[in-house]
């Protein structure tokens, strides 16, 4: 057995035979031609046919992997419509009196060298796109079809690298997994594999010897390893893992697109928590109804200095646009306590969890707060953004926030900058906010209960301190009573209340939350479908009746 480790771009296990995928590295021959006009016409025809193929590929990709991922094929079409590229090909044909294949190959080489020499990783990768389109035209010219999979049995594709068009062209039913020697986790191919839901490894130093063609192999996307010629024990273990995995996936897939509704008809919203813009794909893959907690502090933690309004605006806008009208609740910066940022120059505190953090920083340093608010208000013109303020304890804090928001609106008006009208709500994560929830509810549009901090402040227990485990109870009745109270007070004032802390993802409490009338649960993307399953199996009326007995 040989084992190679690579970077996994999609989890999952595949077991099957290897198909070594090699490009036809046919040498394009330079042939002298007399009738250059005929050669030009051949090129023109091949180019048109290639563009048609790419248009078909775009349609296929659009259906299978979505608009954003399909766009590359539209770009490929434009590359073949590029005058500089076409002029170069035609010029080589006429001036040198050579065949179209050679002219295309030479042009492709020159253009891809231009990209390969650029000082930008992204642009360097585009050299592969130029090669890809040039090879397509050459294939059309020479009448050979690209290496289609003709075997009947699905296979594990092992290749040096795969062009995006090669990935999409492969018949999905015939591919169990991809393993490439090159390629990055952000390459188009990796993104496509992820969207297609096929286990895939990139950057895997497999020895591409002809001998491995047809060998039995296991691709373990969870571990990022490929096992070639695995032993019987290994196979057995992996078959079991795979069966478990498949069952889980099948179950979850069947839950996609379903409404979050209980047997007796009670609905609840299921949103996702995200801590980085990179998590957006997971939000969509797991069928979240929106984003219930977007932790904006990553923008601050990943910067060396205060992020500008423009940087923040672009990020919020991207999230809002990607979610296309679905709600995106963005929490204003929650720095302090365990999340530190050097350039904020926060004073050392003996008890940071109870110190200068979150809204307290924003209200003492409104110049920092305003930059974020301006970015949020501007971005809210591009989608359904809601703003959420963390660590609220008193009514006056809301009043002060509103004053600052009014200033921001006024300034944007004066500068003639467009902005939206986002909902504004607060996190309920201090016992003070719980006790004041009735009064607070009349001042905001929604509540989201942050159970992590609420539990720590209510029980007066530092969760990091393992010596206190015997005193710590995640389901402490004090916390559950508080949640019920917050939801009641929210409803009395006509606003909605959700939970965005870890407790929200605790499936042993889902029924209880439904019984309390919680309107929304915001959880990690991977928890969404399992919770949906619990909701679909719950009968709230029965649960309440059972509780009374």
């Amino acid at each position, binding site marked *: 057995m040989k084992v190679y480790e690579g970077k996994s771009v999609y989890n999952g296990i595949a077991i099957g035979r290897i198909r070594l995928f090699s490009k036809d590295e046919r040498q394009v021959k330079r042939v002298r031609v007399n009738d250059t006009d005929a050669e030009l016409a051949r090129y023109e025809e091949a180019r048109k046919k290639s563009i048609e193929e790419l248009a078909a590929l775009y349609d296929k990709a659009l259906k299978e992997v979505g608009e954003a991922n399909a766009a*590359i094929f539209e770009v490929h079409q434009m*590359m073949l419509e590029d005058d500089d590229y076409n002029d170069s090909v035609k010029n080589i044909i006429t001036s040198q009196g050579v065949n179209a294949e050679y002219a295309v190959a030479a042009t492709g080489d020159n253009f891809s060298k231009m*990209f390969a020499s650029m000082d930008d990783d992204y642009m360097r990768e585009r050299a592969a796109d130029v090669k890809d389109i040039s090879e397509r035209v050459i294939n059309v010219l020479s009448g050979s079809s690209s290496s289609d999979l003709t075997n009947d049995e699905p296979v594990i594709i092992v290749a040096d690298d795969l062009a995006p068009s090669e990935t999409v062209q492969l018949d999905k039913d015939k591919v169990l997994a991809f393993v490439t020697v090159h390629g990055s986790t952000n390459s188009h191919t990796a993104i496509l594999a992820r969207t297609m839901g096929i286990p895939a490894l990139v950057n895997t130093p497999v020895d591409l010897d002809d001998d491995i063609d047809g060998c039995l192999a296991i691709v373990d996307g969870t571990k990022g390893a490929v096992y070639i010629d695995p032993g019987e024990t290994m196979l057995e273990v992996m078959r079991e893992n795979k069966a478990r995995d498949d069952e889980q996936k099948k179950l979850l897939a069947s839950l996609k697109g379903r409404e979050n509704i209980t047997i007796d008809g009670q609905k609840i919203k299921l949103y996702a928590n995200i801590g980085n813009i990179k998590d957006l794909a997971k939000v969509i893959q797991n069928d979240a109804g929106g984003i219930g907690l977007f932790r904006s502090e990553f923008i601050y933690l990943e910067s060396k200095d205060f992020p500008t309004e423009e940087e923040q605006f672009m990020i919020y806008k991207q999230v809002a646009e990607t979610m296309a009208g679905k709600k995106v609740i963005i929490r204003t910066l929650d720095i302090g306590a365990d999340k530190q940022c050097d350039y904020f120059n926060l004073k050392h505190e003996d008890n940071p969890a109870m110190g200068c953090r979150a809204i307290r920083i924003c209200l003492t340093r409104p110049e920092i707060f305003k930059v974020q608010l301006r970015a949020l208000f501007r971005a809210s013109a591009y989608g359904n953004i809601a703003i959420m303020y963390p660590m609220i304890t008193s009514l006056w804090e809301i009043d002060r926030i509103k004053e600052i928001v009014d200033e921001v609106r006024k300034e944007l008006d004066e500068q003639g900058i467009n902005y939206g009208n986002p909902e504004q709500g607060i996190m309920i994560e201090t016992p003070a906010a719980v006790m004041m929830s009735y009064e607070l509810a009349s001042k905001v549009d929604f509540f989201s209960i942050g159970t992590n901090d609420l539990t720590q402040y209510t029980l007066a227990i530092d969760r990091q301190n393992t010596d206190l485990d015997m005193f710590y109870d995640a389901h402490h009745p004090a916390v559950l009573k508080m949640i019920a109270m917050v939801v009641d007070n929210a409803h009395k004032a006509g606003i909605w209340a959700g939970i965005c802390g870890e407790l929200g993802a605790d499936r042993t409490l889902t029924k209880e939350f439904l019984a309390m009338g919680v309107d929304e649960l915001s959880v990690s993307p991977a928890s969404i479908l399992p919770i949906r399953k619990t909701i679909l199996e719950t009968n709230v009326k029965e649960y309440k009746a059972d509780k009374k007995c």
Partner: protein
Amino acid sequence: MKEIKYVITDPEGIHARPAGLLVKAAKEFTCDIKIAKDGKAMNCKAIFGIMGLGVKKGEEVTITFDGEDEDKACETINAFMQANL
């Protein structure tokens, strides 16, 4: 002849996709449209030239319009830049 200057705000700069869209927008017009960075001018109706400039966030490009429909082209491309880049 008309000219606009624009500083790219898109964090990714002029990537393949926006370059493609820019070409599409420019091809709607008959006038000559050029996009230049650091004095290097490229045809705005051809994707390779635009990508070859390797324009990154924070860099300024100059776009010139020369021909019959230059006013309308200038207006449209300016709006395109504001909205997409």
